[in-house]
């Protein structure tokens, strides 16, 4: 395996692994604090039980998130020293803010997990809220570092090195806002639907279980709001990349030729040699509208870029279809959920509905992974868009494939253990929580 490919794959595997735990770390504290708040207000046992059960799982996920994040902060240098040598002083600031946010998160989580019976209830609740806020903030800070790679700002590039560095301008680059909003929503959507899915699956087997019913309702209400906002934010992101990274937009829409107006291409298989998309559905003028808000606007195609500056079309296009497809599916589901909650409550405990929600368990996370593939592969061949190529940043160390194999094997093993452990954890719910054996 080529060293560049190995380094990129290792980065992708490590980030793809970490993001799952990061999403959970950003979302679960909010859900737990919400459940505890309901308990404080209503004194109903099931809310306390759900909050406690969730916090057990969070401790495990948090630890894996922390260690895989530590791996990342070294890997940036281990794999792409050429990048970090120049980017470090420019994007170090958001990373140091992230460190601060994470520190507070870790401390507050310690207080939350170990302080159940030792603190004033509202103080305990407050520590959960702090975990949630600092979790989301740490996510936003790292994403801003990534946004800088897509939309470099805050320096002048001269003779192969940056001068006039302005870390604040770098952090608030033009991709920052759209990526931060979209990512935070994605974390909420993916985790909330996964949690709802697992509890819905258990509910199918034990239909009137109060504990699982409470959990599904809370998780879905939360996920539904985020899932409805997600397409709006996605549209904002798409308009944004139409401005700053037209090659990425062209790749994810498989737009080989600059067109005016441009069709929206749905599905299909891009054919790079013939420069066309086979088996796709075309909606005339719609891409012009989505990218520029005008059915007649011109959209830049890949033909405007030299061949060696085009991102891989096939991967980006498919990843984008997967993300948007899932986004639409989850938004529609959320709409149905809201409608049923208002007018047909009985449907919410029907078997078909619960099975459907259970089937959606992995969907949000698949969309998150696909979305990152769109962003990261769509930036290729650049590591800092328009400034530095990925191949010029990679480590000189030969044989990088061996670290790639090792890290992949370790993460695969951890994934299997975690899934297995969660199943064991779930099996004990009935004996540990009073409301879990209550049927109403």
């Amino acid at each position: 395996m080529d060293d560049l490919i190995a380094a990129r794959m290792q980065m992708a595997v490590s980030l793809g692994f970490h993001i799952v735990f990061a999403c959970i770390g950003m979302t679960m504290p909010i859900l737990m604090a919400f459940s505890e708040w309901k308990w404080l207000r209503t004194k109903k046992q099931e809310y306390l039980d759900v909050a406690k059960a969730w916090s057990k799982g969070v401790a495990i996920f948090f630890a894996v998130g922390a260690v895989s994040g530590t791996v990342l902060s070294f890997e940036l240098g281990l794999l792409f020293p050429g990048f970090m040598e120049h980017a470090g002083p420019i994007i170090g600031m958001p990373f140091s803010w992230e460190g601060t946010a994470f520190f507070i998160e870790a401390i507050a989580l310690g207080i939350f997990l170990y302080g159940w019976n030792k603190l004033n209830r509202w103080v305990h609740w407050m520590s959960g809220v702090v975990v949630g806020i600092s979790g989301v903030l740490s996510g936003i800070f790292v994403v801003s570092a990534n946004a800088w790679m897509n939309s470099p700002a805050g320096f002048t590039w001269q003779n192969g090195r940056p001068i006039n560095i302005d870390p604040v301008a770098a952090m608030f680059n033009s991709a920052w806002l759209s990526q931060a909003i979209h990512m935070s929503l994605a974390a909420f959507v993916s985790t909330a639907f996964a949690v709802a899915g697992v509890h819905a699956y258990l509910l199918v087997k034990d239909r009137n279980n109060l504990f699982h019913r409470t959990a599904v309702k809370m998780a879905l209400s939360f996920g539904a709001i985020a899932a409805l906002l997600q397409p709006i934010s996605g549209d904002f992101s798409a308009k944004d990349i139409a401005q700053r990274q037209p090659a990425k937009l062209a790749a994810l829409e498989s737009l080989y030729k600059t067109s005016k107006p441009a069709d929206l291409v749905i599905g299909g298989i891009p054919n790079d040699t013939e420069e066309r998309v086979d088996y796709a559905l075309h909606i005339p003028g719609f891409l012009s509208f989505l990218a520029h808000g005008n059915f007649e606007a011109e959209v830049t195609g890949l033909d405007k870029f030299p061949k060696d500056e085009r991102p891989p079309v096939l991967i980006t296009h498919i990843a984008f279809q997967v993300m948007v497809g899932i986004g639409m599916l989850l938004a529609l589901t959320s709409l149905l959920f809201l409608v049923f909650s208002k007018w047909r409550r009985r449907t919410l405990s029907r078997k078909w509905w619960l099975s459907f929600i259970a089937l959606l368990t992995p969907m949000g996370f698949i969309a998150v992974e696909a979305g990152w593939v769109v962003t990261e592969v769509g930036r290729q061949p650049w590591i800092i868009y328009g400034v530095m190529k990925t191949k010029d940043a990679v480590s000189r160390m030969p044989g990088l494939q061996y670290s790639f194999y090792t890290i992949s094997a370790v993460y695969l093993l951890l994934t299997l253990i975690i899934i297995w452990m969660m199943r064991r954890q779930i099996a004990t719910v009935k004996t540990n929580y009073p409301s879990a054996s209550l049927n109403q």
Partner: protein
Amino acid sequence: MLAITIIILGVSFILYTVLGGADYGAGIIETFAGRRAEKTISKAIAPVWEANHVWLILAIVILFTGFPKIYATISTALHIPLMVVLIGIVLRGTSFTFRHYDVSHDFTHKYYTVLFRVSSFVTPFFLGITLGAMIFGNITTDPDSGGFYEHFILPWLNWFCITMGVFSTSLFGYIAAVFMIGEAGYEIEQQKYVRYAKRLLLLSIGIGILVFLVAEGQGHHLVKLFFKSSLSIVCLSVVVLLIPLIYYLFNHPNILYLRAAVAVQIAAIMAGWFAIQFPVMINEKNGAHLTFYNTQAPPETFYQLLIALFVGLVLIIPAFYFLFKVFKKTKD
């Protein structure tokens, strides 16, 4: 600004050694102390190990933000030992958490334990190797001179670095033994940790001396550098003078004083080490040095970095205080 940043970098290294050391060392001690100790040890480190960890992250972030060239050079030349450290960190953290939170005590418990203990040895050992390799002077940055072996193996695979690895492992064990004296539930257990602590202190002193001897043997004149730095000499005196005091405290345990004395001792070791070579961070094979001065980022970067660190400290210190108070309550 540069000076403050270097101090914060140094302090986070020291805190990582003291706090993280107690945490890694706990895995080392557990190997000898056996099943009985497992419970006490797990209870002692479960609430704090993630927070302890943050000092390493902080050091790394300061390094790549403030001194990017040092970060890039270490991560290229020392790719292999750092990769081992990372895998060690991952396996250690996860196996510990899994063991602590997994629901039943069955065959899995054994696997988690083996993984936890092995990685508790391997990680400090390779951390020590990495630290040794930075100053040993075998790092080559010129891509045209030498092959794979010269660039990626020789910088860290030598007797000096290996001795450093053994030294840090033994030191971490010592820190943990001292930490556990205060965590032990009853007298006999406490005596056991006192015994461990005494032995590991002697072992660490022995290996510490060996580090200097091996360095001389390999042509890296640490002793000469040492006597040039008055800070190093002061630090060594502190380390040595504390030994009788610590021995006294072993025999008449006062947990607070004992911990404080050992923390100061470790801090002095680290500071002395730092001072020997200051401001050099990396010695290259061709005689060049990477120092804090010739690798520093522009002032604007330091300014922003310090703001973030300052706000962080203002928020974190009271939060930490609160965390410890909550746990104090737990124990009573």
